[in-house]
């Protein structure tokens, strides 16, 4: 079932079309990633979804209905640009954002206490935000965006600027919220996290939806005769086979796409007979990164 329907939405800033006839359906209870380079229109789309700005044309439906103010209480939002009131206590911050989402003060306090325990900042509950480290502030920010157990969670570039530890905590929070039945939409250009997390994916470029579907369908659509080869030492001969269609060079490691009629036996034989010493040879599925790079280059 579709929780959110974005239909033919456009938004221009002056002469610049930030979002151009963009459509996508977000399925209920799934994690949906919107991927695209900087300036592709991800943030504008998200802001329109939250009714912070209105689209020039097109419509956005949540549960089949146009946006109503009341819906804000069912949405949790973590913007790309993050910040909290520096002078406010952690406790008051969480309660404030909870109450702003329609929670009763007592309810908000109770949830705040549960979450602060969960993220291990119990001792900081009565401290001011400005006393916390940046990493701690990030954790408080995650919690403040989901303290009201929203049906829909929207994260704009949630992983940017996070250290690995906080990335892990955020991934855990997202998976936990998914298990509780929340629909999660997030934008990112960091693809390795997206690959582990998403059920569905949309690639956006110049404000347009260029590829959309489940992770599997996207991968099978862009399935390719792809091999990963790790060399014992660098050897330029690996790049010289005539049937190579595309190659990603990581120094000693290569991702090599070859023509469809070349199977692994033939390719491996050719490598060995060329005298290239290899450490590893495997046939692989294309990664989201492969697909992303391919799509972005294609359209150009």
């Amino acid at each position, binding site marked *: 079932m579709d929780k959110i329907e974005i239909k033919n939405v456009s938004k221009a800033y002056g002469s610049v079309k930030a979002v151009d006839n963009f459509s996508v359906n977000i399925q209920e209870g799934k994690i949906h990633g919107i991927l695209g380079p900087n300036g592709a229109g991800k943030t504008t789309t998200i*802001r329109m979804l*939250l009714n*912070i*700005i*209105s689209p020039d044309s097109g419509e956005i439906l949540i549960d089949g209905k146009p946006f109503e*103010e009341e819906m*804000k*209480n069912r*949405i949790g*939002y*973590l*913007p790309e*640009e*993050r*910040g*909290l*009131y*520096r*002078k*406010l206590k952690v406790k*008051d911050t969480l309660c*404030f*954002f909870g*109450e*702003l*989402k*329609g929670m009763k003060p007592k309810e908000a306090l109770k949830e705040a206490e549960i979450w602060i325990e969960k993220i291990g900042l119990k001792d900081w509950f009565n401290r001011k935000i400005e006393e916390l480290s940046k990493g701690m502030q990030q954790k408080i920010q995650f919690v*403040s*965006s989901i303290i009201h157990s929203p049906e829909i969670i929207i994260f704009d570039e949630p992983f940017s600027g996070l250290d690995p530890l906080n990335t892990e905590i955020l991934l855990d929070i997202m998976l936990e919220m998914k298990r509780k039945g929340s629909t999660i939409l997030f934008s990112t250009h960091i693809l390795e996290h997206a690959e582990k997390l998403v059920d569905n994916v949309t690639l956006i470029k110049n404000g347009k939806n260029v590829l959309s579907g489940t992770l599997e369908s996207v991968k099978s659509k862009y399935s390719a005769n792809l091999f990963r080869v790790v060399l014992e030492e660098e050897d330029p001969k690996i790049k010289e086979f005539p049937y190579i269609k595309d190659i990603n060079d990581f120094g000693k490691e290569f991702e090599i796409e070859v023509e469809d009629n070349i199977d692994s036996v033939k390719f491996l034989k050719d490598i060995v007979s060329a005298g290239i010493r290899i450490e590893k040879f495997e046939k692989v599925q294309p990664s989201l990164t492969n697909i992303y790079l391919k799509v972005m280059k294609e359209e150009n």
Partner: protein
Amino acid sequence: MKLITIIKKEFKEIVVKKAFIIGTILTPVLIVAMVFLPSYIMGKVAKTDAKIVVIDYTNAVFSQLKKELESSLSQENKNIKTPKINKEKEMVEGLINFTIIKYKGGKNLKKIESELKKKIEDKKIYGYLIIPKDFFKNRAVVFKAKNVANIGVLKSINNALRKIATRKLLEKENFPEDKIEELTKGVKITTIKIEKGKEKRSSFLGEYMLAVILVVLIFMVILVYGQSVMRGIVEEKNVRVTEVLLSSVDSFTLFLGKIMGVGAAGLLQVIVWAIMFLGGYIYFTSFLPSELKGATVSPMAFASFGIFFILGYFLYSTLFAVAGAVSNTDQEAQQFLQPIMILIILPYLISFSSIQNPENPIVVLLSFFPFFTPMLMFVRVAFSSVPIFQFILSVILLIMSIVFMVYLSAKIFRIGILSYGKRPTLKEIVKWLKVR
């Protein structure tokens, strides 16, 4: 509900600040110090101890003079019945505590004088009085002292001597004793100031000061709390909280909540001050300068203060909110502040000059201009009788312009709070107004 959450947060944020607590307590203390201290000190300092040595060549004046001067206070009190005026007299002439001593010793005037001059230098005595033999005939004495400019001392001595001389004269004429007392009795003068052909009530100065304090209060609260609204919005933009807020509430609720929350803190401060002043007024009433005693502002003026205080704050804070919304830093906001400041300072200055003549046609006309109404109409109500329909009309105009300004500024606010980077031009701001 969300409006209350925002009001609560804004209110709490200000009220728990040290600056707020200190300002709330210290401001009245400072004002009290400024109003009460001078009279308190005057009451203490003006008590002059005047030890005066009398060289009496008539041998008839000294004992009477001692009686007159050393009890001069109680004498005056008998004559002047209202303690209030007596207090005023004290304020002007000061309290003088006379000690009159008869000179005993040599006859050589030069020797005596050099001895007494040394005593004056050593501050053992205040001065000395030479009463020549022919005093009753010529009515002339010599008074030598370090300070001969103390009017109170001279006037008291003069009065006492004149009384003694007159009495002597009347005794000679065989006047009855009780008649003499009646003849030499002082006269009580009640003063009433006439201004523009009308009698001013004696508490006018007090009313004037109270009304001025209230005008200053309106001015200060608008300035301090309006800027607080502005800085709060700039801060939210700086720490990028705005977007999260807008994902939870609409911009209008946010806008209103901020203004009301900050305003509530201002109101609290004023109420605390009012209570402190009232308490202080009752407690310190004896130190109060007499001009302030019995100072009252009519209930109508007080009610209009409440109305204009709240409405004035609302009107101006919308401007401050816009200045905050279109700025990225405090410095940028300062530049938008200048035109707003003019709109605040202008009526403030006019209101002071209009106290003298609140029914000046220009003042009357300006008092209907919404940005001038809070201060000018208040002054008119406090110092003249404003026709009720004029008062109501000004309030209606004020409320209408508040609604209009809230509508306009909420629109600018909505877009301004999300635009970062370049400061918008006036043209762009006008364009924002047209955005749906």
